[in-house]
C-alpha cells in the first residue's frame, strides 16, 4: 500500500477511535448526570409519574404473560427430567431458585428492553429530530433533568416491581403444570418454594433488575438523544438501543451473579 493511502487509512482509524472514545465519555456523563438529577433541583414530578405509568403499568400485562409461559415451560421441562430420576418432588425447589434468582429478572428485563427501551429511544430520537430537545435547551431547561432523570428513576423502580410480579406469575404457572399436569402435591410444591424465599435469593432477584433498569434506560436515552439523520437514523438508534440493552443485560447478569454469589456466601 502506498504511503498516502496508508496515511488516509490511519487518519480514518484515528477518527473512528476518537469518535468511539467521545461517545463512551458522553454516555458515562449522561448516565451519571441522569442519576444525579434525582438529587438536584428542579425535579420534574409529572414527567416521573408519566414515565412510571408508561414503564410500569404499561408493561405489566406483557411481563405477566411472558412470565406465565416461562414458568409453565420450565416446570414442564424439569418435571419431565426429574421424574426420570425419581426426583419429581424437587420441581418446586428448582423452579423457585431458577425463577427468583435468574430467569425472572432476565426475562422481565428483556421484555422491558424491547418495550420500554425501544419506546424511550424512539421518543427521544423523534424529539431530537423535531428540534424539541433544542427548544428545551434554548428555553434554559436541562434536557437531561427533564428527559433522562425521570426515565432512569422510573426504570430502576418499576423494573424490580415488575420482576417481583412476574416471578409470582411464573411460579403460579409452574404450579399449574406441577400439580395438574405432572400430578405432584401442591403442598410439597409451595413448601419447597417457601423454603427458597430466603433473604439471599430474594435480594439477588430484586437487586439485578435494579441494575438492569439503569442499564436499559441509560442506553436507550443515550441512543435516543444521539439520533441523527432522519427516519433511517431513528431506526438505527432504536435498534441499537434494544440490541445493546439485551447484550448488556446478559453480560451484566453474569457479572452480577458472580458478585452476588460471592457476597451472599454461596459456594460454587
Amino acid at each position: 500500500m502506498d504511503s498516502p493511502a496508508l496515511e488516509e487509512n490511519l487518519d480514518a482509524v484515528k477518527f473512528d477511535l476518537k469518535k468511539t472514545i467521545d461517545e463512551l465519555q458522553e454516555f458515562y456523563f449522561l448516565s451519571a448526570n441522569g442519576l444525579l438529577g434525582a438529587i438536584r433541583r428542579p425535579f420534574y414530578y409529572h414527567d416521573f409519574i408519566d414515565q412510571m405509568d408508561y414503564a410500569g403499568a404499561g408493561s405489566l400485562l406483557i411481563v405477566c404473560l411472558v412470565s406465565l409461559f416461562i414458568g409453565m415451560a420450565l416446570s414442564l421441562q424439569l418435571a419431565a427430567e426429574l421424574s426420570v430420576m425419581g426426583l419429581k418432588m424437587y420441581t418446586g425447589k428448582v423452579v423457585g431458585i431458577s425463577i427468583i434468582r435468574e430467569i425472572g429478572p432476565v426475562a422481565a428485563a428483556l421484555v422491558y428492553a424491547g418495550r420500554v427501551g425501544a419506546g424511550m429511544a424512539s421518543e427521544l430520537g423523534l424529539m431530537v429530530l423535531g428540534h424539541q430537545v433544542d427548544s428545551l435547551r434554548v428555553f434554559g431547561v436541562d434536557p437531561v433533568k427533564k428527559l433522562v432523570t425521570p426515565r432512569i428513576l422510573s426504570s430502576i423502580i418499576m423494573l424490580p416491581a415488575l420482576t417481583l410480579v412476574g416471578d409470582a406469575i411464573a411460579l403460579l404457572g409452574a404450579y399449574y403444570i406441577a400439580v395438574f399436569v405432572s400430578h405432584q402435591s401442591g403442598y410439597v410444591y409451595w413448601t419447597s418454594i417457601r423454603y427458597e424465599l430466603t433473604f439471599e435469593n430474594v435480594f439477588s432477584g430484586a437487586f439485578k433488575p435494579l441494575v438492569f433498569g439503569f442499564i436499559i434506560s441509560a442506553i436507550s436515552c443515550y441512543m435516543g438523544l444521539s439520533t441523527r439523520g432522519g427516519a433511517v437514523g431513528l431506526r438505527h438508534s432504536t435498534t441499537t438501543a434494544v440490541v445493546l440493552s439485551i447484550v448488556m443485560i446478559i453480560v451484566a447478569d453474569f457479572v452480577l451473579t458472580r458478585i452476588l454469589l460471592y457476597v451472599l456466601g454461596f459456594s460454587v
Partner: protein
Amino acid sequence: MILFENVTFGYGPKPVLQDASLSIGSDERVAILGGSGEGKTTILRLMLGLIRPDSGRISIEGDDITGKDEDDLREIRRKFSIVFQEGALFDSLNVKENVAFCLREFTDMSEGEIDAKVRELLKVVGVAHAIDLMPDELSGGMHRRVAIARSLAAFEPKMFLYDEATTGLDPINADRICQLINELCKAGTGLIIVTHKVVDAFKVAKRFLFLQNGRIIFDGDMPGLLQSENPHIGEFLNEFRFKVD
C-alpha cells in the same frame, strides 16, 4: 450583537460551514439564504451555542460563547427568541401547555395569570381558537404561529431567530407569517430569518447573506443581491424574478 470570526464547523470530517466571518447588529433584519444543506441552520445553532465550532470564535454582545458550558449559555440564549423549523412544538402537550411551558418553568404566575397570558399571546398570533388542540391537529401555518407565541412567552428577546419559518406553507399562510414577523419587529428588535424562499426573505429582511458550500458568498442589501453576477445566486433568484414578471 453577533460576531462570527473565521468559524468552521462540520458534523463529520466534511465541513458544513467554512471560515465564516460576519457581524450582525441587534436591530438588523437579516435573511440567510442558500440551498438545502448549505449550512444556514447551522449558523443559527452556532449562535445559540447548541453546537460548538471546530475552529474560530463566536461572540454575543462581546461575550465569547465558544467555550461556555450549558449553564452559562442559558443566559446568552435568553437574549434570543427562536422559532425552529416546523415549529418544534412539544407533541405531548396541547397548544395551551406548549405556550405556557416557559411561564410554568420560570415564573411564579398563578394558573389564572398563566391562562390569561396564554390566551393573550395566542390572540396576538391569531390562533386563539386552537388553545385546546394538540400539535398534530394543527395545520402548518398554525403550527408556526403557536411556536411564535411560545417563543414570545419565554423571555423579552433582543433578537428573533426564524428557521425556515415559511417553508412548506401555501403562499397565503406564508404571507401571514411574514406579516406577523414584521409586526413583532416593529419595536426595533432585530431578526434573522433562515430560508430558501427568496420572496419571503424580501418581505421581512433588509440585509441578505447568501451561503454556498458552507461559505458566505454574498453579504449586502436587496439591490446588490438582485444585481449579483454570481450564477448560483442568479439561478436562486429565478423564482423571485418569475413572480415579479
